[in-house]
């Protein structure tokens, strides 16, 4: 009797509408987060960068891409210095054309984050879809998908991204290339990383597809599409989230690398990598701030996402490599 009453009490407590925030606060992930200084610092840094990127048009003191606001006389202003032409204060200095470095960084961050997030989203959607199909249907479909994955994984993904970027450039008319560059980048990086999602999802799907409830769903005549979407997809989302965080860091670095090499975001829509490419030219002439601040921003972004990914991997799935 006693045990019954306590269990019904527990049920009542569980059923009682506890606020979502409260439940989230009490979850294991939140506990581990509160006890990991590295995760907290990384999250704060990442959040600041994301907010800066999202609200760039509001936060940036200047619009670096509106030529009418530029004052060439303000060029090469040192950090915390006043422009020779306008007499205005520039926190992080200006570049050769008098563009405010702080503002270009905010806009560059916006483009870097956008490309990184979209590339990972693209890779995840493609990888999860192909992984589910390979794991559920098996047979020759699986063989084809996984062989392609095997061959692709032999090659470093940055090379594949460059190659796809080159091919895509070849397929777009030259006059549209700069305009399309950002979308081409997203597809290139996404296509170079789908393999990692597909492999994990496939193996989770194979395990899950053998369980009773999937058999039952099949027996009552549900269509494969519905089974994949309603039953299998939710079960593979945990590892996908972890991989997505890890590959967000890699996608951001890949984008920066491609843009730095001049095969990424164009100078008209510069990402952090493009800014570093531009700043590198001033390394020898002493205008260090044009290079340093975009580099530090990229470093903070890559490091915070990387550390968050590491932490999340340890918490959610210690077995995932």
């Amino acid at each position, binding site marked *: 009797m006693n045990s019954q009453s306590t269990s019904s009490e527990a049920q009542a407590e569980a059923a009682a509408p506890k606020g979502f925030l409260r439940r989230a606060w009490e979850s294991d992930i939140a506990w581990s987060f509160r006890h990991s200084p590295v995760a907290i610092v990384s999250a704060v840094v990442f959040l600041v960068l994301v907010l800066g990127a999202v609200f760039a048009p509001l936060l940036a003191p200047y619009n670096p891409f509106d030529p009418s606001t530029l004052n060439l006389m303000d060029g090469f202003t040192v950090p915390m210095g006043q422009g020779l032409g306008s007499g205005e204060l520039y926190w992080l200095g200006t570049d050769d054309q008098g563009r405010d470095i702080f503002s270009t960084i905010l806009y560059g961050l916006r483009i870097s984050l956008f490309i990184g997030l979209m590339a990972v989203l693209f890779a995840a959607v493609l990888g999860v879809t192909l992984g589910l199909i390979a794991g559920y249907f098996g047979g020759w479909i699986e063989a084809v998908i996984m062989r392609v994955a095997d061959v692709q994984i032999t090659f470093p993904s*940055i090379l594949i991204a*460059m190659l796809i970027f080159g091919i895509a450039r070849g397929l777009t008319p030259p006059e549209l290339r700069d305009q399309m560059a950002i979308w081409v980048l997203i597809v290139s990086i996404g296509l170079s990383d789908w393999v990692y999602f597909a492999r994990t999802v496939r193996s989770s799907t194979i395990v899950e597809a053998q369980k009773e409830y999937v058999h039952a769903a099949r027996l009552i005549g549900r269509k494969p599409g519905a089974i994949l979407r309603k039953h299998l997809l939710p079960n593979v989302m945990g590892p996908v989230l972890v991989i997505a965080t890890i590959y967000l860091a890699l996608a951001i670095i890949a984008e920066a690398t491609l843009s*730095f*090499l001049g095969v990424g975001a164009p100078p008209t829509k510069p990402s952090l990598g493009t800014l570093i490419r531009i700043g590198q030219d001033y390394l020898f002439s002493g205008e260090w701030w044009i290079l340093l601040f975009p580099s530090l921003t990229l470093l903070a972004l890559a490091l915070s996402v*990387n550390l968050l990914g590491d932490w999340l991997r340890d918490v959610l799935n210690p077995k995932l490599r």
Partner: protein
Amino acid sequence: MLAYVIRRVAQGALVLAIVGFVSFSMFRFMGDPLENILGQEATVLDRQELEDRLGINKPVLVQYFKFMAGALQGEFGVSYRNAIPVAEVIAERLPATLELALVSGIFAALFGIALGVYTAIRRDGFLANFIMTTSLIGVSLPTFLIGILLIWVFAVELGWLPSFGRGETGTMFGRPSSLTSWSGIRALILPSVTLGLYQMTLIMRLVRSEMLEVLRTDYIRFAHARGLSSRAIHFRHALTNTLIPVITIIGLQVGQIIAFAVVTETVFQWPGVGSLFIQAVQFVDIPVMAAYLLLVGSLFVVINLIVDLLYLVIDPRLRVERGAGAH
């Protein structure tokens, strides 16, 4: 054992066939090379003349066989950008890349293994912990930032080392090489460190964790119980067992090194095939891209094959067939 070797070779051939297919498709079906070379104002006659020279007016199948047969002989067509045979450009630039990759690879492997062993043996030491923490940041740094940082410190601020080019090149094995002169060796240092640093960190972390694993095994305990010296235990017994899994990773890292040579060569203006490839991507120079793909693909396949065969040499357990045959 023979079956193992045959299977590996067959797998490599399959990868090459697929890479060859992609390479040919790019070569044949992409873009309008004539327009790329001649510009939009070219006359019909100009176009025809160039079509004949590039051979892109023949049937697809003929072109395919021509492409593959040519590729086997190191013949990759003519660069769209400057109308020089691709093979010539690559032959001129490949030694520089291989030299850079080789030196970085050796740097990464030597320092990676040495630091990995050190941090494993002095597990709780101050220096070992410091190295481990630093390496965590090193893994997050993009290669090109490392390169820029090194240039800034050693070339701009200290002025110790050159920031670009190969320095004076002499001749080694009939090819120009930076290793023959002091200025060439100095020019190699920064690019090699940049290219090898990430791989070094990776190898170091791997060697450390494998070594810690091995040091916990029974045969290491037994070696201690037999009174062997720490040096013999660490290097003769633990290290050899550590290196078996490490060799695969090192082999795969060679691929990464060649891939990231593209980045390093651009940062240091190193005249290798990597910077050639980047220029080809910028200018949509399809033959060069296709040739680079095939070249790198073959390199990866060969490296993976060598790694697999090295296993046979190092691990006697894989040579079971031979062992059983002898007794």
